[in-house]
């Protein structure tokens, strides 16, 4: 394959990754923005989403689409309930002290991960996509002056659906945050916790809601990706790392910056992974993010006053 079609293929793979990453990272960013909690267990909620999707898909079992739709509803709910329980039982009791919450969420990470190992097992299991048509993509041959279909250049309808679904969900999230009362309450809590409480906003309940909502977003992202990847109890590590990178590059707590950074990081991760090794891509990304945190703690897109 020539360089051009190859790059297009890499960009498509990158776009799928970016779409899922944006959803996961927005969840992490929301939790950090509103609660000032660095949720190290975020990747495990992603894993819960994938594992629950597998359970639902195998239980419903009539048509893959039916199982998929059921998973889209059940998986985020399960993740949200576990997250809210974690918030009530642990995070609230340490008063959201930054260092204590990090240590506690590391603990929650291991509890969820190891519980999945016991309940679900060490195998990686596939989930059948609801639909999956191969779509060959054309490429313009400048020398011959005509369109043709290079061998191997193609995608599937499901991958395009993932990108579209992520865009719809992100727009929905944006509308929720800016156009509804719930969003207003969340933003008010983010801006000034004390003042929000003084105005009668039940900050406790908002925190639980936000933590659950953040987890649900990660689980949704996993339900979308699990027909392409497989469900595995250790799958939470990579999305956690990438989400961290995205949230930091985008500016801690800024949702808009997070989406921009997710597209940037997801695309470049996909493209670098195709041309070089995934390990090298991750080394570069982690190193860059550490240096961004050191030299530009407000993020690349954040403003200084934070």
């Amino acid at each position, binding site marked *: 394959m020539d360089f051009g079609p190859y790059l297009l293929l890499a960009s498509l793979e990158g776009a799928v990754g970016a779409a899922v990453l944006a959803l996961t990272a927005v969840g992490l960013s929301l939790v950090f923005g509103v609660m000032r909690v660095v949720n190290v267990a975020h990747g495990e909620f992603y894993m819960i989403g994938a594992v629950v999707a597998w359970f639902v898909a195998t239980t419903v079992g009539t048509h893959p689409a039916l199982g998929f739709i059921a998973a889209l509803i059940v998986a985020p709910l399960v993740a949200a309930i576990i997250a809210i329980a974690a918030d009530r039982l642990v995070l609230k009791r340490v008063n959201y002290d930054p260092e204590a919450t*990090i*240590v*506690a969420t590391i603990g929650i*990470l291991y509890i969820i991960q190891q519980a999945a190992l016991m309940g679900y097992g060490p195998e990686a299991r596939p989930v059948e996509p609801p639909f999956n048509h191969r779509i060959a993509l054309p490429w313009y041959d400048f020398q011959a002056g005509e369109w043709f279909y290079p061998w191997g250049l193609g995608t599937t309808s499901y991958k395009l659906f993932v990108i579209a679904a992520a865009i719809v969900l992100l727009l929905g999230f944006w509308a929720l945050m800016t156009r509804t009362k719930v969003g207003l309450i969340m933003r008010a809590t983010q801006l000034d916790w004390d003042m929000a409480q003084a105005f009668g906003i039940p900050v406790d309940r908002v925190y639980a809601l936000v933590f659950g909502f953040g987890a649900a977003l990660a689980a949704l992202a996993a339900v979308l990706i699990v027909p392409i990847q497989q469900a595995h109890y250790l799958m939470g590590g990579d999305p956690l790392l990438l989400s*961290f990178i995205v949230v930091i590059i985008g500016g801690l707590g800024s949702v808009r910056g997070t989406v921009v950074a997710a597209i940037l990081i997801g695309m470049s991760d996909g493209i670098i992974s195709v041309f070089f090794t995934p390990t090298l891509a991750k*080394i570069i990304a*982690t*190193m860059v993010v550490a240096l961004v945190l050191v*030299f530009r703690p407000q993020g690349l897109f954040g403003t200084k006053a934070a």
Partner: protein
Amino acid sequence: MSAAQKSLALHLGLIGGLFALAFILPTYHHGNFARIMVLATYAIGYNVLFGYTGLLSLGHAMFFAAGMYGMGLAMQYGGVPALPALFLGIIAATILAAVVAVLALRTIGVAFMIVTLMFAQTGFLTILYFGEWTRGDEGFVLQQKVRQIAGLDLSDPMTRYLAAWVLFSVALLATARMMHVAFGGVLVAIRENEERTRMLGYNVFAHKFAAVVISGAIAGAAGAAYGLLFGYVGATFASVQYSIFPLLWVLLGGAGTTIGPFIGALFMFYLIDYSSGLTSAYMLIAGVALVLLTLFARAGIAGEIKRRWAPWLP
């Protein structure tokens, strides 16, 4: 007895007790204790930064691994004898700690944790990337014939135990001494109130820098010794899990106490050893312990003893 005499007696008692155990313990626990003493040394290094200086690092595995690989690669490919290789490992960890300190100390609080985590992750991935030499997750074995210092065979259980004992004793006494002199006092002052310490005219950055380097060097010494004594060098020791372990040990044993790291490593080692016999999901214990400690016993075992019964505890 004054507090200083009591703490000296405690440290010498612990060291003496561990020496006596070398000749008493049954084979299985004898091996475990050798391992625990090396891991406790790692925890002592971690405690210098976390317990005394108040800086929570989530990336100490990189120093442990730098020591281990600095030693292991020099022996495997450079043909360096064991003792110089051990020092090469410590030097490698010290240099890495200095570089990390210069960069990471520009950040504070949560950002410091994430930066150290990211650096450690970069280190782990770099080890995987150069898998041709490091053998990645698989690791490599150091042959028994090269694991000798001055004719002593380090693969022999008794020699190994005593080598681990020497390492642990030196680390324990050195840090106990460090916390006794003015330098240690400044570290604690930084932990309690950084701004006020600066106001009093202390160079906060220089002290924090020294704390990171000392902490990294001790962690590196533990890593190098672990590789040398147990004859195995692998990327697992650079993974996130090995950054979490020292945090867990120190939290469990008691952050900011001299004997806390040993107590924590001892308890956790046996807890995980016991539960891994029951289930493959033994890290569940680590998770539950972390959550329970943050909820109910922030001071850890030695910290609680100090608070309730023995305020003199160092």
